[in-house]
């Protein structure tokens, strides 16, 4: 592979044909197939895997991962990354629970606005100060993590008086859990933005070829800022969802989601190089991770092995879905 890459434009013919070979089968099908295989294997291992109770467990775990992942997908689509989602989720989690005590229902909009601002700052560090998002969000992520600890060094429980408000997430509507409905709404929002709005389409253009986008008059600063704002939005909703469902805030809540959210996006077939992928890919990616996480427990895989199997599945699925021929160099 690397040999073929060496020679710039002269390689076109070669990569073209490699691509043509895969062009008939979009990446997403590989991911869906992998998901089905996993479900099949786990069901073979334990009949209860497909029980209503267990599906519900998978759904609630996946829901939160999916919402962060949908946000994370936007910086990745423009060719960047958002490592601050973890810190932001932790911060939002404690701010949410603490402010719930004092301002009640207004805690929801407050948290959303704070997160949008955090995303906007991330975007501007990239677009105005021109620091790569990998470093920029590593920095802001650290700041947010410590802010979370300053607000509340230990996990805080939501006072029982606010439990009624938590029903926004924990309740049900027409027999369906609100958590699921919220997740669907967030998915619909991101899907529509990316598919049917100009700014969403611009995210793809900028991710595919930023210089061309600039020369064609696309506001590349605004587009990239917007991608990071969307990432903040996803992280905030996910943090609120999880805080509600565990009836309390946790200053370490976001830690696991940094890598998990990136994995969910990439496993679904969105390229880290930007420009290809989308909301449906992220749904499949999050489901693969959710099914893995749960399924390994259900069939009784040794806890010490779980991480390595998960790692293996991530590598396999990216190998299947990510069209490596499209990137000039893999670093």
């Amino acid at each position: 592979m690397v040999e073929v890459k060496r020679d710039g434009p002269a390689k076109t013919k070669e990569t073209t044909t490699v691509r043509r070979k895969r062009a008939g089968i979009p990446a997403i099908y590989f991911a869906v197939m992998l998901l089905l295989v996993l479900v099949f294997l786990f069901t073979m291992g334990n009949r209860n895997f497909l029980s209503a109770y267990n599906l519900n467990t998978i759904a609630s775990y996946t829901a939160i991962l999916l919402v962060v992942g949908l946000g994370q997908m936007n910086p990745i689509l423009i060719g960047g990354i958002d490592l601050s989602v973890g810190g932001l989720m932790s911060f939002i989690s404690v701010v949410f629970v603490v402010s719930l005590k004092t301002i009640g229902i207004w805690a929801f909009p407050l948290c959303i606005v704070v997160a949008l601002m955090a995303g906007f700052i991330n975007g501007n560090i990239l677009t105005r100060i021109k620091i790569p998002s990998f470093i920029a969000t590593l920095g802001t992520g650290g700041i947010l993590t410590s802010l979370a600890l300053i607000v509340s060094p230990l996990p805080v429980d939501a006072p029982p008086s606010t439990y009624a408000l938590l029903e926004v997430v924990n309740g049900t509507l027409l027999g369906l859990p609100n958590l699921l409905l919220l997740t669907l709404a967030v998915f619909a929002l991101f899907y529509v933005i990316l598919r049917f709005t100009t700014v969403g389409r611009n995210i793809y253009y900028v991710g595919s070829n930023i210089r061309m986008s600039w020369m064609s008059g696309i506001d590349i600063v605004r587009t990239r800022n917007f991608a990071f704002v969307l990432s903040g939005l996803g992280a905030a909703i996910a943090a609120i969802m999880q805080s509600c469902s565990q009836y309390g805030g946790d200053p370490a809540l976001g830690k696991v989601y940094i890598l998990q959210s990136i994995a969910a996006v990439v496993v679904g077939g969105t390229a880290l190089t930007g420009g290809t992928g989308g909301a449906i890919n992220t749904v499949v990616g999050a489901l693969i991770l959710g099914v893995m996480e749960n399924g390994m427990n259900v069939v009784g895989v040794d806890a010490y092995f779980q991480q390595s199997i998960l790692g293996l599945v991530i590598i396999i699925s990216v190998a299947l879905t990510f069209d490596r021929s499209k990137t000039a160099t893999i670093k």
Partner: protein
Amino acid sequence: MLELRRITKSYPGVVALDGVDFTVYENEIVGLVGENGAGKSTLMKILIGLIQPDEGSYTLRRKLVALRDPASATRLGVGMVFQDGSLVPNLSIMENLFLCHELSFRKFGFLSKRAMQEAAYSILALVKVETDLDTPIADTTPEVRQMVEIARLLWLARLYNQRNPILILDEPTTVLTENERQTLFSILSEIKSQASIVLISHRLQEIVENSDRIVILKDGKNVTELEADRASIPDVEQMMVGRRFAADRYHEDEQVEPGDKTALRVQNLSKRGVFEPIDFSVRRGEIVSLVGLVGSGKEAVCRCITGLEKPDSGSIALGGKKLAWGSPSETVRSGIGHIPIDRRSEGLALGMTVAENVNLLVLDRFKVAGLISPSREKRNAMHWIEECRIKSPSSWTMCANLSGGNQQKTVIAKWLSSQIEFLVLDHPTRGVDVGARDEIYRLIRKLTHDGIAMIIMCDTLEEDIGLCSRMLIMKDGRLVREISCPRFKKPSPSEIIGSIV
């Protein structure tokens, strides 16, 4: 010397090479021509072992060989100078020359810098490069880079004791100026005494003038092979494309008399150190060609007009309305389009579909209730794919899968769909094969019929003359001459060349 017999290579859905024969004799320059997609690059990649043929034999110096990778080709004295170079920019000339083979200069376990320098001087003398060996490659001209690559290949052949190495040059002249081009060919004809050269180029003229033998490929098959001194450009063209082109190559009969209305007016525009204040205007339906050597400032003038660069003074007005400086989004919105020289990095989102590329500028037009309507989007894309004759399997084919000519037509379609009034064409036919080139000329003519004004910079002076209705010649940052080129009364290149250099 080298003999390929019945080479076949197919990819899923495409037969890139179908029983192709290719022979290289000692001490000759062989020109290899064909349209985009005719199989030239695949053949070259087989020659240097980058890919392996499905069938066929590879005989080198009367021995049957099977190359596994380019390194084994290097050991046998077969090497390629790639289109956009394969040198490491931040290493020096000398480091690049001997890259990966430094160990042959080992003395007592250390590299002998003196020995390296001596070898470098002697090998660079062959290609007449007299630059400081420690200059980083990034600071050298494209010409020097190319020579260093050629020198490296010659040296490698020596290192592996291979007499008469085979050098493959892929489009070596695209990045060179007229003078440099001549130097290149004079050096090549000297090197010929100790090497064989395979020359690939879209410029048929230089193939016909400089090679001994011409091999023509079409659709992955050998068409013919002819002695260069008996070949004429139209003949070669016909064999490449399979049909003959009209004598009126640039569709002069379609050239329109420009209207009276001024489209673009440039007044007192200047950029310190690059070009001095210049004034000119372009009328509706007029094609004005900017001509000049590299460094004449013509590229910078265009970049100022398209908003990619900020001038120091002056004004640019389109249809009487003054434009903001240095903001592409502003210029695009006011109706100035730009076909950039490098369509891969500046013109297209290669990983996106033809439809997405064509529709980039006009997405807002497809909105129903604030959201883009996929059906309207598709309709618009199909319309322009047809209008510009983009040969694409479907509107959702990825642009990377199109040939160079069709990619260029996609870029043009993108701008056309947005109802521009003015178009800057920066080498619109670079790297485009003869057939597609003809269609691009046709499109350009059609645009002028619609009243679109254009500034154009072309690959060759003939193309400039053929297409434009007026020519502005720039030299050392100044506008030195204006020549009108009315249809059927075109000036000859020799009348003009004097003002350029």
